[in-house]
C-alpha cells in the first residue's frame, strides 16, 4: 500500500467493530424489551452511544493514511471496543442474564485475535522490501575506477546493508557466494582472491579438460571455453587473445557468462559436470557489458581497499556501449539529485542508509556511521571542544556535515573510538542541487530517536 492510502486490514477491522457495536446495541434492546425490570432507555442510551462513537471513529479511519490509522486503531478504536465489552459484561452481570454472547461472537474474537497476532508477528520481524532492478545501468559523464568498482559492489550487494544479514543486489551473488576470507556457506565457492586464483587456475589440467575441453563450445551458454577472443563482441575484453594469454579477468568473465565451462570441485551437480549458477548475462539477471565489467572491477579490487592497481577492466567510455545505455536510462536513475524527489528517494539515491540509521526512512539502519538524531545531537556537537567547524545552529551543522564531512568526526560511544574519517563521500556538493540540499538539511535537522 502507498503511504497515502488506507490500510486494508485496519479499515476492515474498524468496519467489523462497527457491525459488532450494532449487534450489541440490537441485542441489548431485545433483552431490555423482554424484561420489564431492565431500563431500555438507560442501557439503550449507553450502547447507542457506543455505536455512534464506533461509527464516527470508523468514518474517521477513512480520512487517515495508513500510518495514522495504525495509531488511531490501537489507540482509540481498540480502547472503545474494550470499554464496550466491559460495559456489555456489566450489563449482563447487573441484569443477571445468563445467556451471554453467542459462540459466533466468541469465535470471531478468537479468530481475530489469532490473525492479528500473526500479522503483528510478521511486523515484528526484520522488514526488507525488494525493489526491481533498473532495466539498464545508469551512467552520466566520467567515472573514476573507485566509483566503477562501487557500482560493481552495488550490483552484487545492493545499496542497503544490514549487519548479520546478507544484502543482495541485482546480481544476486550473495545468495550462494561468500566474499570474506574463510567465510563459507557451502553453496558456491568463496570469491576472495578470485582474480589471482583464476589466473593460475586456467593453467591447471582440470581446467583444460573438465567438464568442457578448452576450445569446445558449452551448449547452454554458447560460449567457447578458454577463448576470450571469441566471447560475444559487446562483452569481449579489448585486445583479448586466445587461451595462452588468459588472465584473471578473462576467467571471471568466462565464469559469469558460462558457469559450466569450469565447475569448482564439490560445488557442481552431476558429479561436478554442471554448474548450478545461472548465466549472468541472460534473464533473470541479465547484466549488461558495463555491469559485468563493474562486477569484475569490484572483484579485482575489494581485497585491497583503496588500491585499484589490480583492476584490468577499462572504465566505461562515453562513446562506448555505456553511452548508448545512458540515453535510455537517464530518467531512471539520476545520480544528480534535483530536489524534486521525495525525501526518502533523495536519501536512498545518495546511499545514506548504507552507513546511517535515519529515523523515518524505511530500511535506513546502517551502523557504519553515527545515528542521525540531529534534532538533539547537533547542538551538543557544536558545543563539543573538538568541534572546529563554523556552524552555529542545527541546520548549519547538518549542511556542513553533508558538504564537508571531515569538519567534525563523531565519537562512537559503544566502541569508545571515533567513527572512521574519510568514509563518507566528500563530493555531495557535486551531486545535490540547492533545492535538494535544503530539503535534505530540513529533514535531517528534525530527526530524533
Amino acid at each position, binding site marked *: *500500500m*502507498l503511504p497515502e*492510502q488506507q*490500510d*486494508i*486490514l485496519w479499515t*476492515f*477491522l474498524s468496519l*467489523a467493530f462497527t457491525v459488532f457495536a450494532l449487534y450489541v446495541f440490537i441485542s441489548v434492546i431485545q433483552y431490555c424489551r423482554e424484561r420489564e425490570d431492565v431500563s431500555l432507555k438507560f442501557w439503550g442510551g449507553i450502547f447507542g452511544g457506543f455505536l455512534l462513537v464506533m461509527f464516527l471513529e470508523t468514518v474517521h479511519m477513512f480520512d487517515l493514511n495508513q500510518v495514522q490509522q495504525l495509531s488511531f486503531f490501537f489507540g482509540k478504536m481498540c480502547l472503545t471496543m474494550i470499554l464496550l465489552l466491559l460495559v456489555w459484561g456489566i450489563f449482563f452481570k447487573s441484569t443477571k442474564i445468563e445467556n451471554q454472547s*453467542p*459462540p*459466533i461472537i*466468541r*469465535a470471531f474474537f*478468537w*479468530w*481475530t485475535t*489469532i*490473525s*492479528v497476532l*500473526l*500479522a*503483528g*508477528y*510478521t*511486523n515484528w*520481524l*526484520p*522488514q*526488507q*522490501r*525488494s*525493489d*526491481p*532492478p533498473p532495466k539498464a545501468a545508469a551512467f552520466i559523464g566520467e567515472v573514476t575506477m573507485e566509483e566503477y568498482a562501487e557500482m560493481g559492489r552495488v550490483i552484487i550487494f545492493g545499496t542497503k546493508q*544490514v*549487519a*548479520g*544479514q*546478507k544484502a*543482495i543486489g541485482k546480481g*544476486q551473488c550473495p*545468495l*550462494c557466494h561468500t566474499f570474506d576470507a574463510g567465510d563459507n*556457506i*557451502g*553453496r558456491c565457492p568463496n570469491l576472495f582472491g578470485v582474480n589471482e586464483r583464476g589466473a593460475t587456475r586456467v593453467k591447471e589440467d582440470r581446467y583444460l579438460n573438465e567438464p568442457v575441453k578448452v576450445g569446445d563450445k558449452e551448449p*547452454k551458454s554458447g560460449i567457447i571455453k578458454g577463448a576470450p577472443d571469441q566471447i560475444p563482441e559487446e562483452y569481449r575484453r579489448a585486445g583479448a587473445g586466445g587461451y595462452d594469454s588468459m588472465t584473471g579477468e578473462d576467467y571471471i568473465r568466462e565464469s559469469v557468462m558460462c558457469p559450466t565451462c569450469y565447475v569448482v570441485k*564439490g*560445488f557442481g551437480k552431476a558429479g561436478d559436470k554442471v554448474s*548450478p*549458477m*545461472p548465466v549472468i548475462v*541472460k*534473464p*533473470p539477471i541479465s547484466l549488461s557489458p558495463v555491469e559485468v565489467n563493474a562486477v569484475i572491477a569490484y572483484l579485482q579490487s575489494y581485497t585491497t581497499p583503496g588500491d585499484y592497481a589490480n583492476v584490468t577492466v577499462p572504465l566505461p567510455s562515453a562513446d562506448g556501449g555505456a553511452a548508448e545505455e545512458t540515453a535510455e536510462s537517464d530518467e531512471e536513475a539520476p545520480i544528480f539529485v534535483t530536489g524534486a524527489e521525495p525525501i526518502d528517494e533523495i536519501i536512498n539515491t545518495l546511499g545514506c542508509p548504507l552507513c546511517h540509521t535515519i529515523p523515518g526512512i*524505511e530500511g535506513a539502519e546502517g*551502523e557504519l556511521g553515527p545515528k542521525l538524531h540531529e534534532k538533539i545531537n547537533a547542538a551538543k556537537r557544536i558545543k563539543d571542544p573538538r568541534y572546529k567547524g563554523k556552524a552555529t545552529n542545527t541546520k548549519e551543522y547538518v549542511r556542513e556535515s553533508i558538504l564537508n564531512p571531515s569538519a567534525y568526526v563523531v565519537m562512537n560511544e*559503544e*566502541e569508545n573510538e571515533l567513527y572512521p574519517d574519510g568514509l563518507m563521500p566528500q563530493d555531495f556538493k557535486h551531486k545535490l542541487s540547492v533545492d535538494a540540499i535544503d530539503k535534505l538539511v530540513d529533514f535531517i535537522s528534525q530527526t530524533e530517536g
Partner: protein
Amino acid sequence: MLGKTRRLNILPIALFFAFAVYMMPGLAGDAFAKEAFAEQAFAEQAFAKEVMAADDDAEGEGEPEIEWSQDVFYKDFEGNPLKGPVSGAPAPELGENDYNNYEFAPSRIILWMANQQHLYFGSFVLAVPIFCMLIEFVGIRSRESDPVMAKKYDMLAHDLMKVSLTAYSWTAILGGILLFTFITLFPGFFKYMATIFRPVMHVYALMFLAESGVLYVYYYGWDKMNDGGFLKWVHCSISVLLNLIGTVLMYLANSWATFMQAPGGIDEQGRFLGNIWHVIHSTLWNPVGVHRILGNIVFGGGIVGAYAAYHYLTARDEETKAHYDWVCYVAMFICIFGLIPLPFAGYWLMKEVYAFRQQMGITLMGGIMAWLFIIQAVMIGLLFFAANSYLHNSMSRVQGSQRYMKYCKYMVLLLIVCFTMWMTPHTIVMTPAELKEMGGAQHPIIGHFGVMSAKNTAVNLMIVTTILCFLLYQRANKKITVPWATAGNCWITAIFVGAALNIIFLGVYGYFLPANQRVGLSVPQVTTTLTTLFAGTAINISMFKDSESMGDIKWGTQSKVGTYAIFLLAISFTWLMGLMGYIRSAVRLFWHVTEVLRDNSPDAYTLTIGEAGKMLTFNTLFVWVQFVVVFWVASLSAKPAAAKAPDAVPVPAQQQ
C-alpha cells in the same frame, strides 16, 4: 462386535484408497513424464522437420520458412534445449498503458485479494465432494452392519453437499470478479496469458459446465437415488465423476500459475513453440497439483470442523451436541490425515523448484523469502499443537483413556522442544556490536539448530509424535485381546523408538556431511516417518480384532478447549494457506512470467513481511466472514428430518 470390528477398517482404507488414486498418477507419472514427453516432443520435432523439408522441396525457394527456437525448459535426449516451431508473438515489453489502477489501493493488492478469496472458496468446494464421496461410500458399506450409522453418514454427506452447493455459486462469482479484475487492471499481461492459454481457457470453461451439471445431478438426485441398492451405487459413482472433473478443473487452473512461475513450451522471448501440452505440463505442475489436493483436504476438514464446532457450541440438546461432536471428529480425522503427508508434498515441490532454478530455491529458503519460511515453520508448529491438543482433549471423553493420558504431557514437552528447534532461524539481523559479542552470524550452540539437519529432525519427530498420539487415541477404549498383544505392543514400541533414533541419528550425521550431500538425508528421514505411519497404524488396527470395548465414547462431552483447538486449526491453516500461496507467487519477484515477461508496473516490488502479513490476516478474516454468510444462507433452507438417534450414542468406526 465382530461386524463392528470389521467395519472399523473402512474409513482409513477408503481414505488411503482415495489418496492413492490422487497421488499415484502424479508421483509415479512424474518420474517418467519428462523423459516420455521429451521423447514424444523429440519425435514430433523430427517429424515436423521432415514435413518442412518435404514442403520446402515441393514448394521451392521463396516460401516463408518456419522459424525454430529453443524451449526455455524442455530438453532433448542429449540435454540440449528442445526446439519447436515458433507459433506465437514474443512476450510484450509492458509499459504504462498496460496497467490500470484505482486510487484507493494498488492494483496488485486488489488482484491478490480477488485471487485469494476465489482460491479459498475453490479449495473448499473441491474438498467437500471428496469428503462426501468417502462418507457416502462408508455409509453404503456399513448399511448392513449398522443401519443407523449408515443413515447418519449419508445425512452428513448430504448436509455437507448442501453447504458446498451454496459455496459453489459463491466460488463462481468470486471467479468472475477475479477475471474482471485481471482483465481490467492488468490488460497487457492478461492478453499474453490468453494468447498462450487460449484453448486451455475454453476447455476450462467447458469443464466448469460439466462440473456444474454433475454437481446438480449429484445433489438434487440424492433422495431419488437413495433406494439402498443399484441407484445408490450409481449415485456414489457420480461423486467419483464429480471429483475427477473437479481435479481436472483444478489442474487446468494450476497450469496458469505454474507456467507463470516456471514456464515451459516457450522460448526465451516468450514465443509459443506450438505444443500446448508443454505449456500446461511445466515442471511444477504435478507437485503443485498434489500439494493443492492435500491442502484442499486439510482446509476443507478445517472448515467442516469449525462449522461442526460452532454448531456443537450452540447446540441446546444432548442429541445435537453428540452429533456435532462426532462430525467434529470425522472432520478432524480427515484433516489430520491430509496434514501428515502435506509437508512431504511440499518437499517434492521445493525439490522441483530447485531443479528448475537453484537461484529460485535459494531466494525462497535463504534469500528475501527466508523469513516467510520461518513464519511457515511457526504456523506448522501451531497446526501440530492444535491437532495434538484436540486429540488430547478428545481422549478425556473416551472411557479407558486414562491409561494413556499420562503420556500426553511428555508428548507436549517433545512437541515444544521440536517446535523451538524448528523455528530457530539460521541467522538474524544484528547490530555489529551484537554480532561481535556472539562471535559470528551464528550462535555457537543455538546456531546448530538453525540448519536443515536440525529442522528436518524436529519436524519429523513432531509428525511421529502426532502419529503416536493418534494411535493411542484409536485404542483408548479398547481392551486388546488378540493372543499376540504383547508382541504387537513390542513391535509398535520398537517401530516408534527405532524411528525416533533413526531420525535423530540421520539428523546428527548430517552435520558431518557437506551441504549438498546433507540435503539427501531428508529422504530416509521422511521414509522413516512414513513407515511409522503405515506400519504403526496397520499393527494397531490389526490388534483391535475381537477387542473388548471399555465403554462407548461420551459424544457431546467434548471440552471447550478441544473445540477452540478446532477453531485454531481452521484459522491457522487458512492463514498458512495464504502465506504459502503468497510465497509461491512472490518468488517470481519482478516477473509476471519468470524470466520472460517482466512486471513493469509500479507494484513490481516485493512486499515487506509486515505488509504481506497484514494482507494475509485480512484475507483470512474476510474469507471467514464469507464462510459464515454461506453457512447461514445454507441453513435457511428447510432442515431435513433428523435421523433417529441410535439407542446408544453412535460410535464411529475407528473407535469401536
